[in-house]
């Protein structure tokens, strides 16, 4: 009977990892960069929402929109001034730039908003809902709901719209994409927009549960990265499953073994997959297209 609770808790954290993993994958697919500032977008989502509520006195929904818009703006600025000017940089130096950006964002937020942890009020109350012998909070339903919507939305976008298809084309072959008239840079910018919006949304919906502070992005970013690696950096179901599996394993590990191993489990899986199945758990081995 405890098992059900572990699984439900795991699914809830796993959904968050999945959302963050998706936002990693979107940028990776259009640029080949692993954006380690992704966790900071998640943090910005939560922190900016709280700011909008306390400083600007906005109602919750408006505050969330403002926070997502604000984070997206940060994403755009980041892409414009840190990624785009370096036309021929190697992926490694771009990755290092993203690490630098994450430290910068964290530092600025710490200076502006302080080091204190803050809580966002729950969207629809805190009365627990019983599911068999387990319980979950209304906020968990929000998390599940938003995750499902995002998955459906991204599926529709990437497979059924011209822009989405253009972005996928860039990920397969940049030069060919630009030869058929796709503006690769616009697609890169768009990928940053989508990814920062998605990351901040994840940050907003978890803030009522986990609370937020300037430094929550690091761990969440790494866990999202694990999820994306498990899914083979695809922007589809693989990453989502990766996130959910990671969440459940963590929760089972903490519940059945010892909570000391919780983070170790995540990173052990990460290393194992990088060694054994670098293409991800669910992808068939790909041959290089020539």
């Amino acid at each position, binding site marked *: 009977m405890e098992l059900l*609770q572990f699984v439900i808790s795991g699914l809830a954290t796993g959904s968050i990892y999945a959302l963050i993993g998706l936002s990693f994958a979107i940028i990776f697919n259009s640029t080949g960069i692993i954006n380690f500032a992704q966790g900071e977008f998640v943090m910005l989502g939560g922190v900016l929402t709280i700011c909008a509520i306390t400083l600007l006195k906005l109602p919750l929904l408006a505050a969330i929109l403002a926070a997502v818009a604000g984070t997206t703006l940060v994403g755009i600025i980041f892409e414009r001034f840190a990624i785009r000017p370096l036309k021929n940089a190697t992926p490694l130096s771009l990755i290092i730039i993203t690490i630098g950006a994450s430290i910068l964002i964290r530092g600025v937020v710490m200076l502006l908003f302080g080091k204190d942890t*803050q809580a966002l009020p729950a969207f629809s109350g805190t009365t*627990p809902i019983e599911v068999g012998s387990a319980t979950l909070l209304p906020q968990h339903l929000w998390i599940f709901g938003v995750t499902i919507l995002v998955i459906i939305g991204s599926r529709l976008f990437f497979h059924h719209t011209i822009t989405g298809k253009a972005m996928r084309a860039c990920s397969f072959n940049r030069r060919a994409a630009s030869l058929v008239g796709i503006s690769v840079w616009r697609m890169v910018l768009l990928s940053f927009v989508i990814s920062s919006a998605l990351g901040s949304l994840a940050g907003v919906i978890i803030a009522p549960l986990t609370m937020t502070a300037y430094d929550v992005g690091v761990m969440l970013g790494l866990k999202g990265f694990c999820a994306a690696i498990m899914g083979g950096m695809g922007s589809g179901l693989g990453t989502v499953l990766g996130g959910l599996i990671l969440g459940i394993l963590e929760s089972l590990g903490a*519940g059945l073994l010892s909570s000391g191993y919780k983070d170790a489990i995540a990173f052990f899986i990460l290393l194992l997959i990088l060694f054994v199945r670098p293409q991800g758990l669910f992808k068939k081995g790909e041959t290089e297209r020539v």
Partner: protein
Amino acid sequence: MRKLLSTCLVGFSLILAASQAFAAAPIKIGALFAVTGPASFLGEPERNTAVMVVDEINRAGGIHGQKIELITYDTGGDATKAVQLANKLIKNDHVVAIIGPSTTGDTMAVIPVVEKAQIPMISCAAGIKITDPVKKWVFKTAQNDSLAVARIFEELRKERKTKVAILTVSDSFGASGREQLKAQARRYGIDIVVDDTYGPKDTDMTAQLTKIRGSHAQAVICWGTNPGPAVVARNAKQLGLTIPVYMSHGVSSKKFIELAGDAAEGIRLPTGKVLVADLLPKSDKQKASLQAFIRDYKKHYRTEGDHFGGHAWDAMMLLKEAISRGATTPAAIRGQIEATRGFAGIGGVFTYSAKDHAGLNKDAFVLVEVRKKGWTLVK
């Protein structure tokens, strides 16, 4: 006429300066606090309080007409820097006593320096090893973790609860608490049936609490600093945990209630008396000191004084008492501090002896319960 006036003025000011120099060379006291860095939540209120107390003493004419000069340095929570600054205080500034440092790490690093130079030091850090074993020149004012543990266990024994689950954070604060909880459990006839931990950055503790719910524990004791315990409180409410939840003094601030929200209701924790100064009975020896501290702090800094500032208040006041009993040399001040009996400060009622340089007993903590987003005393 004008010349005469200016001559008079110069003469007058000369006399004034001379008289000041002869009448009272100020007593120099050094202070080391972690005003910046990760322990700034300790160092900043401590520095503020020390400056405030010295101001008040000097405004009232000093001690026996002698002003106090406080020389404060910021260790940044860095033990190496703390040692350098301690040396500077002793060798360059020639202080007669040192208050601080703020953290156990800084204090342990500075101890050999003050022991060698034979300068009394009153630390504001809580670590039990600072005064156990006793060092001749080192005292401390912050309450030991072991006293907070004792306060909780005493209440559990009163309620005849013998099986507890402990959930501690995996950092130095949690590790020290866990050690104390396990060490003292047997003395109170208490069985620790679940012993679990969580990471300082963990955001979901339902797994650990589910395990606790499935055990026979009659109470949960969670040992950590914000935000972990707030998450534990929320998760416990989500899981419908019916057994009482105890927290450590690490979350004895309004911030915890703010973070945990409704989930904080009914949670109990041991805390220094600053938090509940107004609720204390008139007979409480510390009440006057507490109210003076809170009033002064509010006047100077426009925010609430906390128990961290209280550690510095106690340290300064102990020094003041020692000096006003006639001690002026480091050795005499040390002797007078050790001779302190029943000094009612902020952290508790201090009685030092040659065998005890921590000076407090478990009455330093009161047990409070969160009710309606405020604190109430558990009788």
